[in-house]
């Protein structure tokens, strides 16, 4: 791709040329963002529009697939009413706590086992068995230990997030380039310093990859936890609507959740971009 002829003359001089290049890169990025946003909107419009049309044409059963306009209206009511914010806050608190605690535990365990291989081999089957337990079935025990408040939901989310983060951290640490490890050790790094300067930064892409999945699972954990027993929160709202066969309410609840996830993920993404700022842009 050659430069447009108009920009040519300034390129003769090194500095001026470089400014143009930077400007060009910036405007290309802006153009790309516009394309992305408009495509996203187009997809949303097309998806929701065809949904609405299909419902109106009775192809989709309105009971199971409530009209998007009804869902929007319900959300509007909720927002106007304001009560939704209390529920949302509860669920959000649970999800964020689950994300923080779950990933902290996953990180620590992942590092520990990746560095202490014998322990990893010993615990391997236990971890895999624990990961296969259906959390829903364990709900009574969570209730027993953590009560009906937010903590049983947090634990619920933690049991999902933990394993996702753990497996990726574990593998991420083991994937660290041996030369980097050797070099740091020769330069005098103790185990703790290795973690901080070598293993953690190197495993970061792995960790963030798992965090992106975890955001969704933390929300799911909180909601399902509430669904199983609670007196507030989005899961409670959804479960109540479900008991009343009010599918519009169920969908409205899910839409609100989905919107919230985007916000949390945006935060994760920002942190990621900051921590991984040293990375070369990926090849295409």
């Amino acid at each position, binding site marked *: 791709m050659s*430069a447009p002829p108009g920009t040519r003359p300034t*390129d003769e001089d*090194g500095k001026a*040329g*470089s*400014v143009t*290049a930077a400007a060009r890169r910036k405007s290309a990025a802006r153009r790309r963002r516009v394309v992305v946003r408009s495509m996203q909107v187009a997809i949303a419009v097309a998806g929701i529009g065809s949904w609405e049309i299909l419902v109106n044409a009775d192809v989709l059963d309105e009971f199971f697939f409530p009209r998007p306009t009804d869902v929007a209206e319900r959300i509007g009511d909720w927002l106007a009413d304001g009560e939704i914010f209390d529920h949302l806050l509860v669920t959000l608190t649970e999800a964020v706590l689950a994300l923080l605690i779950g990933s902290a535990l996953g990180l620590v365990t992942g590092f520990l086992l990746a560095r202490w291989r014998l322990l990893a081999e010993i615990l391997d089957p236990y971890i895999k068995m624990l990961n296969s337990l259906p959390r829903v079935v364990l709900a009574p025990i969570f209730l027993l230990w953590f009560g009906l408040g937010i903590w049983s939901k947090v634990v619920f989310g933690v049991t999902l997030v933990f394993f996702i983060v753990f497996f990726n951290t574990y593998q991420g640490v083991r994937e660290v380039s041996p030369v980097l490890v050797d070099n740091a050790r020769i330069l005098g790094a103790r185990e703790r310093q290795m973690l901080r300067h070598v293993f953690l930064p190197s495993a970061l892409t792995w960790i963030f990859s798992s965090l992106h999945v975890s955001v969704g699972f933390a929300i799911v954990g909180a909601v399902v936890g509430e669904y199983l027993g609670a007196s507030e929160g989005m899961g409670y709202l959804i479960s109540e609507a479900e008991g009343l066969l009010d599918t519009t309410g169920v969908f409205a609840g899910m839409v609100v959740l989905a919107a919230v996830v985007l916000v949390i993920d945006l935060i994760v993404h920002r942190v990621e971009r900051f921590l991984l700022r040293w990375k070369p842009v990926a090849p295409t």
Partner: protein
Amino acid sequence: MSTATATVELADIAVSFPANDGTDYTAVADIRLCVEAGTFVSVVGPTGCGKTTLLNAIAGLLTPSSGKVLIDGEPLRGLNERVGYLFQQEALLPWKNVLDNVAFGLQLRGIGRAAREAAAREWIRRVGLTGFERAYPHQLSGGMRKRVAVAQTFLVDPDILLMDEPFGALDVQTRQIMENELLELWTGSGKTVIFVTHDLDEAVSLSDEVVLLSAGPASHIVGRYPIDLPRPRDLMDLRARPEITEIYARIWADLREEVMKGYERSSGYAAD
């Protein structure tokens, strides 16, 4: 063996990279160079001046910020399909053993297993790695990996050969063997070779012309040294010939000047 030839022309090329403070770092600028089809050109210059950058541009892996790469007069768009490129960094596939790595180019061209493995084994022998066909890259020494890469690149027999310090990790003798293999491959093939090296001896004795780049930033061509020696050349003999020593001394002096300039300048220019 292919017989197509290709002229490589760098028309007023500049390349800049985004620096961490948001400005640009201009690596090379004002590069005008025409490498005639079938010639062997070496590029030398202070480390970090932009030699690899130029090869990347010719390979189409990097789009110049301004200027064009012309192949046979046609502006290059996207990847240059006619080049073979021996990278400065290690580029072997860690999950393929030596045999599969060397045969990789042929595999991509859809050549049957038997045929490509026979060809690969021949090149493995020529780079002296017989016996290591089944070894994975991490089981080889640095120099051995480099030789696998040489075999991999030579085997696909490209019209344009870009080589970035290919023999730097080899001992003197193995290096000579490799140089001879290269010349043998090149002689009469009509291939265009662009060869980056830090060994002036090597540059002078192999090439039709040596190109010297200035110290960065905004590195440009400061000298071109045609080497008018008869071919075929006997590399062993060559180094003692007076013409060689004379050219060598000139390049050496010019390069030294550039390096010193760069050293002094480096405290003046700030990337941060």
